[in-house]
């Protein structure tokens, strides 16, 4: 299967026509005609502004959009570079828009990007989401230059986000990745990454494209694979991450399952590596930090608590096989607490996540059932976090997340001992 996309009619001709390239930016999409034009323009402007002497390629890997997303990509171009204060000549810029094959999902879209990058022999790549409203040409510079100029293999994004956004990142993926692999990468599933051509080729050697990595699991897989295999990692501050309103029908439990399954799967793969890690280290950060105004986010705390309470009422027989008696006792009490007193401490939450990781490792029950039964607990934790952070500003929220990370780190030795 590897390399199949580059042999496809149309794509093969485009690749042959382009020959070789220096930089490639991939945009995965699915019905993003409304927003992708802005992203394409930002990428093209970024190429022209910061890499005028490089041969650049934009790849749109589409999941079978029916709203003309690929047509928008092909039709969008910056005609008047003077509007972005650019007067120099640009070496070359090409576009490839192609549907990807395989399991529908972001991971499969990225696979196509990696394959085209390999075929063109690019030195540096980046991937950016197609629904971004806050992307600027500078994002391309910040994601690519650490690879081209400083020799980094992986550039993880650093954003300013609303205090209630990125809760799967803040409560599970970031603390877990940090405590297990020892690198402080703040947005391991940020979605917009830069990486070297060498790392893209390394990704293609892995046989993961029929798993959850092919869907939402791709982000954590890319980050963890880079860290665990000793590739040099850095972060770039990109400013605010604002994207198109999410699909209201998006299933939270499916999303949580895919991300957590991929994270736990990586724990199995790199067990010998993370067991040896005993301290966390910062990674270099590029970009100029500045404060940004963020759009307000509305939340319905009572509905979250209701979902948690329902889960506690119905799923305890499943959780009995996973969680300790003390934790279960606490959850039972919490389900009777009023909204005012609803708090899930960091110690309890970290213990829950580690216990689920151990249960997934022991294969106590079907993995999908196991991880989907985590959803009410995650919602409860999110409700608790929202209540706690109600009056907090951004630095105070960051301090709360830092505390959670330290709890994860404190509990790690006991978790590692129980992992046999």
């Amino acid at each position, binding site marked *: 299967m590897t390399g199949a996309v580059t042999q496809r009619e149309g794509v093969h001709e485009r690749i042959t026509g382009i020959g070789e390239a220096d930089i490639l930016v991939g945009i995965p999409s699915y019905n993003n005609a409304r927003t992708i034009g802005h992203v394409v323009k930002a990428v093209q402007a970024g190429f022209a502004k910061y890499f005028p002497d490089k041969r650049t390629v934009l790849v749109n890997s589409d999941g079978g959009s029916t709203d003309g997303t690929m047509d928008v990509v092909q039709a969008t171009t910056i005609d008047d570079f003077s509007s972005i204060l650019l007067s120099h000549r640009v070496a070359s810029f090409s576009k490839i828009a192609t549907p990807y094959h395989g399991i529908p999902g972001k991971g499969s879209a990225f696979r196509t990007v990696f394959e085209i990058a390999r075929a063109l022999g690019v030195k540096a790549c980046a991937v950016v989401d197609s629904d971004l409203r806050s992307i600027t040409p500078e994002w391309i510079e910040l994601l690519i230059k650490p690879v081209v100029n400083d020799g980094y293999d992986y550039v993880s994004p650093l954003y300013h*986000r*609303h205090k*209630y*956004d*990125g*809760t*799967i*990142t803040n409560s599970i993926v970031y603390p877990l990745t940090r405590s297990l692999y020892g690198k402080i990468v703040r947005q391991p*599933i940020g*979605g917009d990454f830069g990486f070297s051509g060498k790392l893209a080729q390394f990704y293609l050697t892995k046989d993961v494209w029929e798993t959850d990595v092919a869907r*939402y699991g791709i*982000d954590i897989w890319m980050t963890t694979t880079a860290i665990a295999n000793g590739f040099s990692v850095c972060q770039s501050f990109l400013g605010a991450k604002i*994207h198109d*309103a*999410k699909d*209201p029908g998006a299933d*939270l*439990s499916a*999303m*949580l399952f895919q*991300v957590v399954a991929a994270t736990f799967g990586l724990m199995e793969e790199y067990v010998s590596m993370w067991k040896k890690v005993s301290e966390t280290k910062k990674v270099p950060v590029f970009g100029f930090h500045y404060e940004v105004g963020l759009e307000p*986010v*509305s*939340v*319905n705390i009572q*509905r979250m608590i*209701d*979902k948690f309470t*329902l*889960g506690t*009422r*119905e*799923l305890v027989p*499943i959780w009995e096989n996973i969680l300790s008696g003390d934790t279960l006792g606490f959850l039972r009490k919490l389900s009777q607490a009023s909204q005012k007193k609803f708090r899930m401490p960091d110690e309890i939450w970290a213990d829950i996540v580690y216990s689920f990781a151990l249960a997934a490792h*022991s*294969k*106590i*029950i*079907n993995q*999908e*059932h196991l991880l*989907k*039964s985590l*959803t*009410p607990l995650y919602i409860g934790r*999110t409700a608790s976090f929202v209540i706690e952070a109600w009056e907090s500003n951004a630095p105070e929220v960051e301090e709360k997340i830092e505390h959670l990370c330290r709890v994860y780190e404190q509990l790690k030795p006991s978790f590692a001992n129980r992992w046999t």
Partner: protein
Amino acid sequence: MNFLQRIIIEPFESCYEKMLTFLPYFLTSLALFIAGIILGVVLRVIFLRIFRAVNLDRATERLGLFEMFSKSGIKEPPSSFIARIIEWLTIFTFAVVALQTLKIPTVEHLLERFFLYLPNVFTAAVILLFGYVLGNFFGRAALIACVNAGLKKAGTLGRLVKITVFILSATMALEQLGIGRETVIIAFAIVFGGIVLALAIAFGFGGRKMAKDYLEKNIESKKEETRDEIDHL
């Protein structure tokens, strides 16, 4: 003398001859039965070791069979229980072969009928077992999905799915055994269709207000959901 010969000696001689003919069969049969017992014990020990080596107990725990065993009052682990079943199946098979070796026409006829029916029993048992496992699996999947969707009757719906799958498998098992073939299918269809119809009528007529409230509440909660703007990733 002739009378004595006919009434006592001849039958006795005939019986003696029959016994002489039957005795080798009986001894062979007895030997087979004893061999079956020994082989059964040996197989039990071997299979127990194999099951423990492949960690069968943990696998059955994952499939929910361990729970089924416990609920049925079987206290020993599945590995030991299945090994014991293998032992008794071996002994039973040898016992049947031993009975056939006796060459008694009535026994032979009964055994023939029994053997023709045996595959049905086995198939029915497998169907029931699968039904139980699948019922547990789908019941749990439905329960978790309903909880995550925030349905207050999640527990009831989960149990309903579990029971429906099991009833379906029980119907199939009974059909396999040839017990009231048509009756069972018709009864199942009537009961199942009746439940659905009763619910529809109850919900449509008796619970019009409830249905209205439910739908309004549901639509209202959908509106609320779109207002929840947390980006989880």
